[in-house]
């Protein structure tokens, strides 16, 4: 305990410095939040409000952007619209005011679903493979372990897009173009190196004694891994999963190159919304807002693990 008072210990900051730190953090948060707030505000503006100059801070909120995001519409004569029965729901009403009727659902939901499947699927694969590989590298004498680890790292040394054309050609040959499984494999391949390196660090931190104790207590190595190592690696696994998910979720270049139809993800789809019927910024903003939600939810759910994970086990014992 006496060591806590020594010169090298962490000193509790004073009230003034705490206040300065808090001010800086809040200031930074406000600055970074401005674009997000602007996107959200744009998503609830009407299209004329969204392009008005100077920009409107006060406006009447409208769901038009969200309606336009989820639907396709066709223009009709006012007579035709007047002859229609009562509007069915808000979107119907909003659309008719613009002399249009809803023709059917847009592609946004299926594209969003693609994003969910591909991003979460590839994250699951990358973290699963990464955990097993990291455990192997951490615990066993792997021949050429250092070289293999370097090789794994080297796959991240050039921007993934540099191999876009070979991958495009390969995928066309293999019939993986525009398939969810193809995108999942691609993102897994990119993420697995990150996962192995991050997780190896976390697993190295877990003392071998725990597994040895479990093996002496009558468990096989696999059981010891599952019952003793995995529960203690959750912090690292959560942190790694978030990094992998963020990459796979936001990835744009490969998605726009390799997907165009059934397997298209949300990032290449959202900009295309703008082309349908003029400058529909509220619909684009609505798509972006919804696109932000899953990562936000996932990060909030795992924030405890993530925060502990960022310290990389420095506070263990």
């Amino acid at each position, binding site marked *: 305990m006496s060591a806590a008072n020594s010169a090298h210990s962490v000193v509790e900051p004073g009230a003034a410095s705490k206040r300065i730190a808090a001010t800086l953090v809040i200031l930074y948060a406000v600055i970074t939040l401005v674009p997000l707030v602007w996107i959200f505000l744009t998503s609830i503006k009407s299209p004329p409000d969204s392009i008005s100059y100077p920009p409107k801070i006060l406006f009447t909120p409208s769901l038009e952007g969200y309606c336009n995001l989820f639907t396709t519409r066709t223009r009709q004569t006012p007579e035709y619209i007047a002859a229609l029965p009562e509007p069915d729901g808000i979107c119907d009403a909003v659309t008719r005011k613009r002399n249009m009727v809803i023709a059917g659902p847009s592609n946004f939901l299926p594209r969003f679903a693609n994003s969910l499947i591909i991003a979460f699927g590839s994250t699951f694969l990358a973290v699963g493979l990464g955990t097993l590989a990291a455990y192997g590298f951490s615990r066993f004498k792997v021949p050429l372990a250092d070289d293999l680890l370097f090789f794994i790292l080297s796959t991240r040394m050039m921007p993934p897009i540099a191999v876009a054309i070979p991958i495009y050609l390969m995928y066309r040959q293999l019939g993986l173009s525009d398939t969810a499984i193809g995108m999942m494999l691609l993102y897994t391949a990119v993420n697995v190196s990150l996962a192995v390196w991050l997780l190896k660090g976390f697993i190295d931190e877990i003392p071998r004694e725990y597994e040895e104790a479990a093996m*002496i207590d*009558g468990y096989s190595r696999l*059981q010891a891994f599952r019952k003793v190592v995995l529960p203690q690696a959750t912090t690292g696994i959560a942190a790694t999963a978030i990094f992998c998910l963020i990459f796979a979720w936001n990835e744009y270049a490969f998605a726009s190159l390799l997907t165009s139809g059934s397997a298209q993800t949300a990032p290449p789809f959202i900009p295309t919304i703008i082309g349908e019927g003029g400058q529909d910024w509220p619909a684009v903003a609505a798509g972006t807002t919804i696109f932000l939600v899953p990562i936000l939810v996932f990060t909030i759910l795992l924030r405890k693990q993530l925060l502990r994970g960022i310290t990389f086990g420095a506070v263990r014992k």
Partner: protein
Amino acid sequence: MAEIRVDHLRKAFGEFVAVQDSSFTVEDGAFLALLGPSGCGKTTTLRMIAGLELPTGGTISLAGEDVTYKRASERDIAFVFQLFALYPHMNVRRNIGFPLLAQGVPKAEIRTRVEETARLLQIDHILDRPVSGLAGGDRQRVALGRAIVRRPKCFLMDEPLGTLDAEFREVMVRELRELHNRIHATTVYVTHDQIEAMAMADRIAVMNHGVIEQFGTPQQIYDRPASMYVADFIGSPPMNFIRFDAGLPKGARTARIGAAEIEMPALRAEVAPGALALGVRPEHIRFSDASPLRGAIYGTEYLGTNQIVTVETQGGLVRARLPAGQSYRIGEPVGLSFKSERLSLFDARSGRVIPSVLHEGALRREARHG
């Protein structure tokens, strides 16, 4: 419970030989301490008995069954780790019950056996606490609980008291020995602390550089060290060595050191002329003005009931344990006399003891063990 038999055990890590040709037997219900400095191979020996390390050669048998290459989980042994290795994501109850879960013991029985064990170790009041908040002693008891709950063939302990503070270590030494007396489990206990080993063990194996220097009871090891290494490692302060050159015939009862003729137990072997060392425990030294072995007081350490007086002699510094009453001036000349029947004579080149009357009982006993 079972006998552990280790036969010509050897372990090499590449070029480095951690354990070379160790053989010993731990009788059913006995408490063996593997004692030695760090890097002497004691932990490696223990890990091979546990199955956490595979030997390079030799055999290990538990209760008559050869387990040399069996998995740790198939050996039915318990291991207490230096840092306890309590599973941090489980509470005390689940930690202690974990080995029973592996055996597929029914839930109700796990419950009763865990509670029984906890009562034995007096930790039944903390059963539902997480292990992360426990004090050192309680962690130690939980680790012991996890070991004894499934009544294994033997217990292996790797410096389990190493991380406790000195005061508490004494308490745990007593508790461990009491526990052993109650459950009579064959135990192998690794330590670098001679006091722990002396206080708890029935047998001690003193190891150095992968070799067992001596295997015997604490009394044998202390009174009749088999080598200068053992004599120096055991005892605080350690045995004094008075070095001299001589050749002695078989049956010799005296040795001439400088001007003094020192009596000692009759030798049972002839000694070729060469460097020798006379081993004297500090408590076997008295000051006597008549003695021809002279020295001058070099320093004193007061220890309460007695004092350690260091005397500078021609053969080097000699430390004597004397009653605390008398006080000495530094530089004061004194004569030294030894308790002759307790002296050991070593061959200073090989470091081995030269057999004398002192060893007769011990040699017979060791022969029976070997």
